[in-house]
């Protein structure tokens, strides 16, 4: 309504764009190549930051994560494949840098564990159901027993006992 609003709107726009400039400064080698930039982010998201262990190096702002992100971008610029870059990190920091551990002898139990537990649950369930059915599988009543049961239900039980 009043003229100053326009200038404050412009200021708001400038302020909201400023953080983008700060991000761009961090991403020098890939800044002009959106494909390489998204590759760098994808690879960084797969790698665990060793300093703050529950963050990927894409999320973390630890000094080491910054350096490793820089490495990822440089190697992309140098034409390395995603696989080569991940292998480079694993060679230095071990499988621990991978959020998704590779399947091998030492991690077999880790990968197969949930399926094994599920299987064990099913086996236990089947055994329990079988045991219950066996309990219910009493032999059916004979003719004499049927008659006695009918008498009992009819309330004639007293006569028999007397």
């Amino acid at each position, binding site marked *: 309504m009043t003229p100053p609003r326009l200038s404050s709107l412009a200021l708001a726009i400038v302020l909201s764009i400023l953080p983008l400039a700060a991000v761009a400064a961090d991403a020098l080698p890939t800044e002009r190549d959106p494909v390489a930039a998204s590759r760098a982010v994808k690879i960084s998201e797969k790698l665990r930051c*060793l*300093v703050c*262990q529950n963050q990927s190096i894409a999320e973390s702002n630890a*000094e*080491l994560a910054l*350096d*490793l992100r820089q*490495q990822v971008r440089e190697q992309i610029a140098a034409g390395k494949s995603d696989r080569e870059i991940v292998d480079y990190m*694993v*060679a*230095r*920091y*071990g*499988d*621990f840098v991978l959020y998704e551990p590779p399947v091998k002898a030492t991690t077999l139990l880790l990968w197969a564990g949930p399926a094994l537990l599920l299987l064990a649950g099913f086996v236990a369930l089947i055994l329990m159901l079988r045991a219950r059915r066996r309990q219910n599988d009493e032999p059916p009543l004979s003719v004499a027993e049927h008659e006695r049961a009918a008498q009992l239900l009819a309330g004639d039980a007293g006569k028999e006992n007397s």
Partner: protein
Amino acid sequence: MKNKLLIPLGVFIVLVGFLLVGLFRDPREVPSPLIGKPAPQFTLAQLHEPAKTMGTADLKGQVWLLNVWASWCVSCREEHPLLVELAKSKLVPIIGLDYKDEPRAGKGWLAQNGDPYTLSVVDRDGRVGIDWGVYGVPETFVIDKQGTIRYKQIGPITAEALEKKILPLVRELQKS
């Protein structure tokens, strides 16, 4: 029937056992894949004489320690007296890798706290650190005569680790 009731108790005890062991393990200690592998090569400028370089090739044929330190590193102060003591015994050369540090600050720190290093080299941008899988300063590596990494201490050296692991290993490697 009674035995069946003991099964959940048994499972629970095993679980508690696992958790108890986990409680006393340090999740920050990540086993290095470099142990038993050739030490990554480097040639870096020396801290005290920047015009001169020193590298892994100069150390072939002897057992040596690589200690990663920095003037900004707080827990380096913790292990430093032990290193100074070790340097006095002249048992093994200790090479210092001044990691991501301002050389002037590094020199000042050594002047103040004592310099246990046979030589210090400067890893200004931390690239050599990445090659060696360094993620928490201080770290200490034991390298044998063939240039193979035999041991890695993550975090400050303790008197116990020095007496029980590092020194016996160094002596054994020096004999071979």
